[in-house]
């Protein structure tokens, strides 16, 4: 006696295969959604903003009249922000990663630091703004300066850099460390001369991605109190300033149609900056991929 009726099974097969094909189509369509939205987004912003994007736009300061509004202060301000964020976050991030990967013993303190970092990565950016406002702007009296905003942003992107640097350091083969120790090198010499140079591409790639996050962030800076309308260029890190996303936010929230076009032009500048940074990251990644 047979428990399975083979002809029944065979009859169902075409249906099952058809369902499989249909679902594959659905999955593919869902995948397309992301791509289509991205295409629409780029198209819309490009067509809206390209008219306002010209030499004057890059060289003018913000203005009440949309046709005179420019992005100079914000663009320069974003670069100033990077001048603070890049060294601070890279130094702290790479230092932390070296500690965790090379020195930390397996104990509760290390576990605590690691859990803390992954939780910090999930804290909403606006909460970092509250921290920056209370500690940097008020308690340390840095006011609404580039330094206060930069330190706030550095803490925000720190977890991203730590994780990227940890992965890069972990990927350095043990062989290389052993070779160095075998020559009588000390631990720090080995880290400085062998591990870090080998991990630099990974660290840089992660670092650039983190910086591109910082350059696009708005919320913490709104809370810190960075002005949205400024008509001068900062001279030192203690000066106040504005950045691209803040300027775009300001234009977006104006009711006039013309300001939306200016906002779109600002977004194009921001996106070009981001694409530029990401291309560098991709270039570094491709150039140094699979060296060991």
């Amino acid at each position, binding site marked *: 006696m047979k428990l399975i009726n083979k002809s029944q099974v065979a009859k169902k097969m075409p249906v099952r295969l058809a369902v499989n094909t249909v679902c594959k189509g659905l999955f593919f369509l869902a995948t397309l959604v992301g791509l289509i939205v991205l295409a629409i987004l780029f198209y819309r912003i490009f067509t809206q903003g390209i008219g306002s994007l010209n030499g004057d736009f890059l060289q003018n300061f913000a203005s009440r009249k949309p046709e005179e509004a420019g992005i100079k202060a914000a663009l320069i301000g974003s670069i100033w922000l990077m001048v603070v964020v890049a060294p601070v976050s890279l130094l702290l991030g790479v230092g932390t990663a070296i500690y965790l990967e090379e020195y930390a013993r397996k104990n509760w303190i290390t576990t605590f630091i690691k859990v803390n970092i992954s939780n910090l990565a999930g804290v909403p950016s606006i909460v970092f703004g509250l921290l920056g406002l209370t500690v940097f702007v008020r308690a340390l009296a840095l006011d609404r300066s580039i330094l206060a905003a930069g330190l706030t942003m550095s803490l925000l992107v720190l977890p991203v850099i730590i994780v990227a640097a940890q992965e890069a350091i972990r990927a350095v*083969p043990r*062989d*290389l*460390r*052993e*070779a*160095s*120790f*075998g*020559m*009588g*090198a*000390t631990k720090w*010499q080995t880290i400085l*001369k*062998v591990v870090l*140079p*080998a991990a630099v591409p990974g660290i840089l790639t992660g670092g650039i991605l983190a910086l591109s996050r910082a350059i696009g962030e708005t919320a913490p800076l709104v809370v810190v109190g960075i002005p949205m309308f400024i008509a001068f260029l900062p001279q030192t890190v203690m000066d106040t300033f504005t950045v691209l996303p803040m300027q775009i936010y300001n234009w977006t929230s104006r009711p006039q149609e013309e300001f939306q076009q200016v906002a779109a032009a600002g977004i194009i500048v921001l996106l070009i900056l981001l694409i530029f940074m990401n291309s560098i990251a991709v270039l570094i990644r491709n150039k140094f991929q699979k*060296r*060991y």
Partner: protein
Amino acid sequence: MNMTLMRENESPANGFENVESVPFSEKVYETSNLNLWYGENHALKNINLDMHQNEVTAIIGPSGCGKSTYIKTLNRMIELVPDVKTTGQIKYRNRNILDQSYKVEDLRTQVGMVFQKPNPFPKSIYDNVVYGPRIHGIKNKKVLDEIVEKSLKGAAIWDEVKDRLHENAYGLSGGQQQRLCIARCLAIEPDVILMDEPTSALDPISTLKIEELVQELKKDFSIIIVTHNMQQAARISDRTAFFLNGEVIEYSDTNTIFSNPNDKRTEDYITGRFG
């Protein structure tokens, strides 16, 4: 008759020295009653071995016998493994290296190591060779240049790379990389060179070149080489120690080990019954 038997039975415990035929030079390493544990695992059991200057000492045995563990103990690379415990003594030039007051960096400056897999740094050939001298503070360009030439010549790779010293070492073949690693090791003029299965990742021709090189190097250095290739041990070494399950079964001059082993287990191993 009876007396002779007694002596022969006793001989292993005496360090096998009654069957020596190679004359002794000065001792480099003296290991006495060395025991080593990985956590609970007793990996080296009561090792007693002496190694001599300007000789090639081979350590053979099946995988897992402790030979690699032992050679890594000689420059304390074993400390990179967590949870390792040792007892006993290893004297290098009359000082116990297992004493924690002996700085590993000093030890490893005297005792170089060549690893199983070629492990050049992802730097230029030149920078690989000067790595050791540089970390030890030698910065003079002229001196470094001289060291590079001498070391690369010493490792018999100078002619192949002299025109591309500033190219990345990863462009070299496996055998060339391993000779570069030997050159890197020679650059700090160590007293002893430890080689942990240096040819296991190489093709036969590269292996032959390294073996010839070892014969040359022993004029200036003392060499301790771990190998799982018995023919290699027979070809290049002056003395051979046979390890099994963390113990030294037999230690003698190479000819004796391979032609007239004292212990049944040594004989079984070199005739290929196991391992």
